[in-house]
């Protein structure tokens, strides 16, 4: 008998999240967290060295090296890959991952490898991420993989060690939250704008303790890339994970990928995957409804991802915010960001543009940005950079000629990695530099000490690079 989520005939209606959960419980006991089986564990250089050390100290092995895949992404350079790393501390971290993978028999896609890239880009790309799976990684944006109808969430290093040793994880069952988005997205409005609008509405704590299932006609008509962008930022809404029920879009995207099932196995898998939907009548603990037809491109103005406005709007006035705590954090944010209340967003000058990160660095994102910049040039004094999410995305983009469009427009074209998303490698903002970024976090100093981050979609980032201030593609036509 195959375990996993069942067809659930004649039982209580269940949410997709609960089906996935129940299908992975190894052990359940009153008063204890459930012990969940983990189908795929993704590992990177930053949150794993202390976990491997723990294994060594306890004399433990990696239980399922075949369900574990490692890559280098957070701390790797995106230029000069053939040169030794300038920073010896970074070099040591990278060497440590290579040594640990060799010692424990874990598959590694190291720097420069054709399959290397941001951990949340390569999992789906290689077909390792499939519907119905449990997927974890020592990185909060593991929620990205939920776009395939998987239960995928970020863990800390102690939990990384736990999964390496046992292939399981003790977890408390999260609550269910539905985010229903209906209607056609207006021209120029993307998945990124949908998720920024949602976080603006429910706040950075809006999803705490919940798994979000994204539903509705807007989600159904989104590509896998768009669904990944939305699930990716579930964590910015405080949620444990985000997911979308798999459908024909999912299956078409997966078919033929290196790790996808083939032949009779593909048919068996499809049979199972088609059962992975929330049953009619299943109850959610919380529901939010969004009308897609009224959305506009969004830009963040503050230092947390809920501080956003439509691009047609202005920097808000903290005095007009009713909640005292939020007014105070808005005041602090405006000081840090060097912004005046009331300034129209389109009048805010920008000096740096970053197109990349696990939120928006897939081929579709690069195509959207390239379509905007094609035949044009970035504004004077602008520093603009494209960092593909993986070496495969990079190769695909180069085959389509996107790299030439970007470089002709004045963009830097880099190799794959997290890069300026977190400013751990040399790609950083200088103090007070202002960046339109397709990444997911606008925290103080996230992209470099004193740097000012504004979260936007790839289309807005591209238009902003041309205009020198926040702009939409229509603005520059």
């Amino acid at each position, binding site marked *: *008998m*195959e*375990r*996993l989520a069942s067809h659930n005939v004649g039982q209580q209606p269940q949410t997709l999240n609960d089906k996935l959960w129940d299908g992975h419980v*190894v*052990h359940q006991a009153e*008063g204890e*967290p459930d*012990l969940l*089986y983990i*189908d795929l564990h993704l590992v990177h250089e*930053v*949150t794993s060295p202390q976990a491997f*050390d723990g294994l060594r100290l*306890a004399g*433990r092995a990696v239980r399922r090296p*075949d*369900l574990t895949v490692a890559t280098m992404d957070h701390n790797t350079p995106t230029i000069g890959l053939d040169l030794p790393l300038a*920073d010896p501390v970074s070099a*040591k*971290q990278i060497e440590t991952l290579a040594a640990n993978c060799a010692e424990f028999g*874990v*598959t590694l896609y190291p720097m420069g490898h054709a399959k290397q890239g941001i951990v949340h880009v390569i999992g789906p790309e290689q077909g390792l991420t499939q519907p119905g*799976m449990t997927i974890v990684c*020592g*990185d*909060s944006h593991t929620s990205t993989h939920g776009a395939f109808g998987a239960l995928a969430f970020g863990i*800390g*290093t*102690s*939990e990384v*060690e*736990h999964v390496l040793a*046992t*292939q*399981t994880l*003790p977890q408390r069952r999260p609550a269910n939250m539905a985010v229903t988005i209906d209607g056609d997205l207006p021209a120029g409005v993307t998945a990124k704008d949908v998720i920024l609008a949602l976080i603006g509405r429910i706040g*950075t*704590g809006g999803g*705490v*303790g919940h798994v979000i299932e994204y539903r509705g006609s807007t989600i159904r008509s989104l590509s896998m890339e768009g669904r990944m962008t939305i699930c990716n930022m579930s*964590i910015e809404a*405080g949620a444990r994970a985000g997911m979308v029920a798999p459908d024909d879009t999912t299956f078409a995207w997966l078919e033929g990928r*290196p*790790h*996808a099932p*083939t032949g009779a*196995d*593909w048919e068996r*898998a499809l049979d199972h995957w088609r059962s992975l939907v929330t049953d009619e009548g299943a109850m959610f603990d919380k529901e939010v409804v969004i009308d897609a037809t009224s959305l506009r491109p969004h830009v963040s103005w503050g230092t*947390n991802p809920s501080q956003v406005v439509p691009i047609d709007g202005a920097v808000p006035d903290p005095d007009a915010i009713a909640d005292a705590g939020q007014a105070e*954090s808005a005041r602090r944010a405006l000081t840090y960001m060097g912004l005046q209340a009331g300034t129209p967003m389109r009048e805010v000058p920008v000096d740096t543009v970053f197109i990349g990160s696990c939120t928006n660095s897939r081929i579709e994102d690069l195509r959207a940005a390239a379509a905007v910049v094609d035949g044009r040039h970035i504004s004077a004094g602008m520093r603009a950079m494209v960092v593909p999410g993986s070496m495969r995305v990079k190769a695909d983009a180069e085959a389509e000629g996107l790299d030439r469009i970007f470089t002709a427009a004045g963009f830097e074209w880099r190799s794959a990695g997290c890069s300026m998303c*977190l*400013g*751990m490698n040399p790609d950083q903002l200088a103090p007070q530099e202002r960046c339109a970024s397709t990444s997911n*976090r606008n*925290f*103080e*100093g*996230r992209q470099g000490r004193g740097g000012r981050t504004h979260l936007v979609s790839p289309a807005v980032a591209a238009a902003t690079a041309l205009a020198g201030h926040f702009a939409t593609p229509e603005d520059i036509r």
Partner: protein
Amino acid sequence: MEPVRQITGTAVPLRRADVDTDQIIPSEWLKRVERTGFGQGLFAEWRSDPEFVLNQPRYKGASVLVTGPNFGTGSSREHAVWALQDYGFRAVVSPSFADIFRTNCTKAGLLPVQVDADAAEALLAAVETDPAVVVTIDVEARTLLAAAAGVSTTFPLDDFTRWRFLEGLDDIGLSLRNEQKIVAYEAARPAWMPSAGRVAAT
């Protein structure tokens, strides 16, 4: 982890909401492969301001951090917990914690003490005025007492996690008690599920 039964000490007031893990320990510090030595990087950016609360000599030696809601939001880096512990904190008091941060705390042995907004505010105000206010946190009873602040409250900690704190138990060992069940589960997994070692011929 070491057993934690009772924590008694003074507290540092950090009057900020949504303190993210990038603030607790900036990414610059994540290059290290060790588990110790992160205390120096704790709130590194804010500490460059001489007025910042951790730089005030009157809060030296405190073992409890009192802060605003949604503490530990953002990145999953457990380094944030290690930095707080390495600096000398044994408990963090807040009206709410981000999920992953809270889990990381319970794995590493830093006690997350969630109290209601009024109790947190009373404690913040009292400690801001008088750094000598003593806070006593009892894991067994799940209580927080700060008599000088007029705060006496309880906090949530499920029985299982409480037991792990009291006994200082290793989670991996606990899970491996179910080895037979893990083996049985693995035997029933469909063979078509992906494996790192198997790639379809293309």
